[in-house]
Every structure is written in structure tokens, then in C-alpha cells.
């Protein structure tokens, strides 16, 4: 994969400190992501991976005590989640939310309309949208019936995760943050999800993929792998770092390494 090191980063995290209540969770995180790149973030439970993706998406409940989140060259700290979404940030949640009484189809349509409006595109006719959605749903191995059901309500764990990727592929963001989208997927679903992500991948897209398992990285080959421990990135490397982690765990990284990779 061609590296795009000369690109200006689409996402630039600088010395980010984030607390929940009195509890400091991110303690000086730095990360730079450019278009065309896939970054994998790994790390033990509770190290702050979801906190990081949530904070980039603007989820309320976190206090940013220090640092910056620069997206496309501007600080987004003051922006509401919907503004960030309309600028092209997408978050596939670790725990997708159920929306009683809101159908998948109308949900996606409303969201897409909001994004298209922001992009200065015209409204899609219902029929066009339905056709478009049907194709996307098929690519994710979804029965058309699932589009008529309420968002995530009664969905299996795997269906919820696939639904997140379906939303990504319909909404077509620039920066996709995928928080453990591979957790709880069976082997077939993992392939479907990986295919979705790989189809999305491209020179105009950036992906940050949070995972616990090397397995998904066999399908989605990352350009960089980062290890987040106790709110800091303690090591970055290529995809071979993931293999190392798989074999050795995180313990050896808890001591600050003498020289970073």
C-alpha cells in the first residue's frame, strides 16, 4: 500500500488529555492520520480506546482538559456530533444503540439526506434511495426485511456490527472510526465486514480501526498499528507489531520502551 506521508493529516491528535469525572483516561495521546491510511489501535481493556473514538466523534460526557483534535486542518473541539458527522466523521460504535420505533430504512434515509444537504447534493428520490440501499444491504448479506425493522432492536450482536458497516457504506464518510466492529462476529460475518471496509478503503478515505484481535488485520491490512496503554500510545509500528502483540500480550510494553519504533 502506497504510503501518503506527504499528505496533510486529516486527523491530528495532539497531546490529548480526557477525563470522565475526576478520572483521567487519556493522558497525552498523539496520533496523526492521513487520507489513504488505515490505522489499527490495540490495547488492553480500559486503556481508553473507546474514549478516544467517542471524543473524536463528539460524544458528550467527556471533559477535554488539554490538547487538540484537528480535523481537516481545524479544531473540532467546539463542534456538536452532528456537525462533525456532516464534515465526514463516522463512528461505528462498540455498542450500537437500539432505536425503538425508528426503522433502519428511515433512519438511513434521514441521515443520508442530512449529509447530502451538507455536501450540497440534491435529494435522492425515494425509489433511487431504496434501490441504492438494497444494493448496499445485499453487499452486507442483509435480508431486505432487516431494513424495515427498527434500528438494532432485537438484532443479534453480529447483525448490529454489520449494520454499523452498512451505515458507513451508505453514508460514505471521509474518516471512519471503527470501534471493535470485529468483536462478536462469526467467521463469515468477519469476512463480510472486512469486505465492506476494504471496499470503502481508498485514497480519499481514512480508517481508524480499534481491535483486540490480529485476525481482522489479516483481512484489512493496516498501514500502522498503535498500542494504547493507560491513555497513551506507547508503541507504533507496521502490521507485524500486531503479530507480536498476539504472541506476547501487552505486558512487555507497560514499561516505557527505550526507543520507540
Amino acid at each position: 500500500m502506497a504510503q501518503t506521508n506527504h499528505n496533510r493529516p486529516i486527523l491530528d491528535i495532539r497531546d490529548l488529555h480526557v477525563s470522565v469525572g475526576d478520572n483521567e483516561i487519556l493522558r497525552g495521546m498523539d496520533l496523526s492520520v492521513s487520507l489513504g491510511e488505515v490505522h489499527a489501535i490495540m490495547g488492553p481493556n480500559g486503556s481508553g480506546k473507546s474514549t478516544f473514538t467517542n471524543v473524536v466523534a463528539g460524544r458528550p460526557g467527556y471533559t477535554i482538559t488539554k490538547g487538540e483534535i484537528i480535523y481537516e486542518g481545524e479544531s473540532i473541539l467546539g463542534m456538536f456530533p452532528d456537525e462533525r458527522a456532516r464534515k465526514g466523521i463516522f463512528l461505528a460504535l462498540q455498542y450500537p444503540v437500539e432505536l425503538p420505533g425508528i426503522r433502519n430504512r428511515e433512519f438511513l434515509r434521514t441521515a443520508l439526506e442530512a449529509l447530502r444537504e451538507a455536501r450540497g447534493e440534491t435529494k435522492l428520490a425515494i425509489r433511487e434511495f431504496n434501490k441504492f440501499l438494497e444494493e448496499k444491504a445485499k453487499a452486507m448479506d442483509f435480508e431486505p426485511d432487516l431494513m424495515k425493522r427498527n434500528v438494532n432492536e432485537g438484532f443479534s450482536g453480529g447483525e448490529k456490527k454489520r449494520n454499523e458497516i452498512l451505515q458507513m457504506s451508505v453514508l460514505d464518510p471521509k474518516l471512519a472510526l471503527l470501534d471493535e466492529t470485529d468483536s462478536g462476529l462469526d467467521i463469515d460475518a468477519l469476512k463480510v465486514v472486512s469486505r465492506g471496509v476494504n471496499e470503502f478503503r481508498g485514497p480519499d478515505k481514512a480508517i481508524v480501526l480499534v481491535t483486540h484481535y490480529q485476525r481482522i488485520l489479516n483481512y484489512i491490512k493496516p498501514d500502522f498499528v498503535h498500542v494504547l496503554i493507560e491513555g497513551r500510545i506507547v508503541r507504533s509500528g507496521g502490521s507485524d507489531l500486531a503479530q507480536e502483540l498476539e504472541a506476547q500480550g501487552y505486558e512487555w510494553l507497560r514499561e516505557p520502551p527505550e526507543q520507540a519504533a
Partner: protein
Amino acid sequence: MAAPKVISRTSTQEELASDYKWGFVTDIEADIPPKGLNEDVVRLISAKKGEPEWMTEWRLKAYRYWISEDYREPRWSKVSFPPIDYQDIHYYSAPVKKEKGPESLDEVDPELVAAFNKLGIPLAEQKALTGVAVDAVFDSVSVATTYQKQLEDLGIIFGPISEAIQKHPELVKKYLGSVVPYSDNFYATLNSAVFSDGTFAYVPPGVRCPVELMTYFRMNSEGTGQFERTLIIADKGSYVSYLEGCTAPMRKTHQLHAAVVELIALDDAEIKYSTLQNWYPGDKDGKGGVYNFVTKRGKAAGKNSKISWTQVETGSAITWKYPSCILQGDNSVGEFYSVALCNNHQQADTGTKMIHMGKNTRSTIIAKGISAGQGQNTYRGLVKIMPTAQGARNFTRCDSLLIGSKCGAHTVPYIEVRNPTAHMEHEATTSKVSDDQLFYLMQRGIKEEDAQYMIINGFCKGVFQELPFEFAMEASQLLKVSLEGTVG
């Protein structure tokens, strides 16, 4: 059968610009007798309509009952309001007709037609193609009824009750007061004495009414009470779906609305009654608005009969209403689906009564209460299983949604079981619009306000889907208008 369509209203720019979408006043000469109530006013109302003697007597009987000592407004509900001065109200106001009565739509007062057009009511013949028979009650008199011919061919009677009193006295005599007797409660008694007009419908045996019947109620004159009387009879094996819509212009003073609705379903008959109530709720400080004190009751009189109430109550300063079912026939079914919204200083005390008398009678209650601002929403329901109701079943579900922290939701279920074979289920939930749901929707690019509506709309889904399609669209639109400025 192709689904009959419902009128849908489109708003003009100026309507959309105002806070209350339907707050315009129409300048029509109104024929208003002096304020206050006495026997002479009752006789005058009756005489204005050229009513037969028996009708006048019935009204007077109600009036005399109403003035009897100690007869008062019910005090058990959770609503509060200053005492109403019943002598400060006009009890009758009819648009002045230029000549005799309008024979066709062309003869209707053009001002009135313009007003209806503003409301989007398709009085014009070509709009009858939308498939709704509209009986519009403007202030108190039914002005015109569309879609008459097709109904007549089927033997369906649909029109102003004043007309039915003239043309079908045997039906009116037999059923008027048979479900809600004149002595039922203070407001129903008042209504029985002074009702000005309302809707009458009769569907003959075995006939399935092919269109939605609809009445549009609108209050106009300042200081006028509105007292409609609606009577719907579904004869054996028939079916009818009826819709009522209500709007009132903005008024600084409170307006009294005390309607009575009676439904009768004979053997194997079904009546579906839907309401979209959007009377003026008063301003943000609680000034003005309609007092909506309504008695609605249906009797599932015959075996296998069914009465279904669906209501979306977004308007009125105070709503006091309990559409009820008396399940008399064996295997009869009663349903109540309700969305009640209270915003600003609105108060709603609403719910239903299901009285099970026949064997294997079944009832379902789905009540959704939304409170915003300082709104106080009470669900009050009674399920009563009589000793004769072997094998009766009830399912009740009450959900409350709170928006903000100054509002309140209250659930007051009464259950009275006098037959041990009864099967009862009751579920109740209270929730807030969840931050997680809001974030999820917003993360997908949806604006906060729209996200809120989607969640609220989703909350109401189980009730909205009971409404005819276009009415459901209108209902969710209404909800949005009613909540403007509250969410987001």
C-alpha cells in the same frame, strides 16, 4: 378494498410563521344570542334548529338536571383551573346564512369556503376524490357535507345531527343518550341541554363503509362554548372508520369545549374512531386555550362487535377525556390507543374505561404520554371485569416520556376484577429521551432537533400506526409543531 384516503392539510406561509399554526380568525357574521344559560336559551337553541317537541323536552330535562343543587364539575381529576363562569359563555353561534340553506357547495358563504381552504379541508367537489366524506362543523353548525352520493347509495347516513333529528327521528330517539345518559356527568349534562350540532352516522347491516368519514371541528367566535354531539351507529355486520380533527384560533380567554360522543356497535359490527385534537393550547405562560372536557363512550352492544378509539391529543389548555368501551356483547373487543402531549402549561388527564360485561370480552390499552415544559400528563384508566364476563382479558401498557425536568407524568390505573377467570396484564414505563440514542442519531449527521423528533415519533409509533396513513403523517407533523422550541 383500496384504502380510502384522507385529506391532508398543507399550511400557508403565514400559518407556518405563527407559533400556533392554525391561529387565524375568520371574519364571518356570527348570529350570537346573549351570553348565559337559562331555559329560554335552551328553547331558543332548539327553536333555531326547528327541533321537534321531544328533542326540546330532552334538552330541558338535561338543563333542569344540570342546575340541580350540588351538581358540579367532577373534582377527582388531576387538572386544576379557576372556576368557570357558565353565565359568561355564548351557548350558540351559527354562521349567518345569506339566504336559506346552501343546496350545494357553490352556495356556501365564500368566506367560509376560504376559511376551509385555509384549513385545507377539501369541500370542493374535486377534492372529494380524495375519498373523504367531510362534515365540517364551524363554530357549531355543520356547513356542508361532501361525498354524499356514494354513501347514500349504500344506505349510509352521514351528516349533521341536526339534520338527522329531522330526517331520522326514530334512530336518534332510540340511540341518543343510550350510551351517555344526560345525567352522566356535569359536562355531558350541559352538552345534552345545549348541544348545537355535531355529526350523525348510521351504517346499515352488512355494509362496509368504503371511505373514511370525517368531521372537522373548529371554534371561531370569542367567548363561545362549543358543544358538539356525535352519534355513530354501526348496524349488524357493518364497519365504519371515522376521523375527527379539531383546531381553534388563538384567543386570550379560555374557551370551553364540552362534547359528547356516543358509539353503538351491534352484532359483528366495528367502529374505528380516530381523533386528532389540536385545539389552541394557550400561550407559553398559560394564557388562553381551550378547556376540553369531553365524554366519549362506545357500546360494543352486539356479540363479536368491536370499538376502537385512537386519539392524538396535542392541543387544549386542559384535556379531560376518557374514551371508553362498554363491552356488552359476548366476544366483543375494545381498544384504546392514545398519544397525549403536554407542553408549556398544558394539563391532560386522559385515559379510558373498559367495562367488561360479556363473555370472552377483550380489551387493549396503549397509552403514550409525552410531557414537556411544565406540562402535567396523567393517564387514568379503569378496567372493570363484571361477574358475567367469564374469560375476559385485558392488556394495558402505559409509557411516559419526559422532556426536560419541570414536567410530570402520572399513571393512575384502577383495576376492578369481579370474575376470577379474568386475565389482566399491565405494563408501565417512564423514560427520558436517552443521551445514547440522541448521540447515535446525531453521529449519523442528523440535527439534534430532528433526532429528538425521531425518537419521540418512534415512541408514538405503536399508536400512530393505528391511524389511517395520511392522518398518521399529519399526527407526527402536529407533534413536531406542538413541540417546537421545546427540544433541540
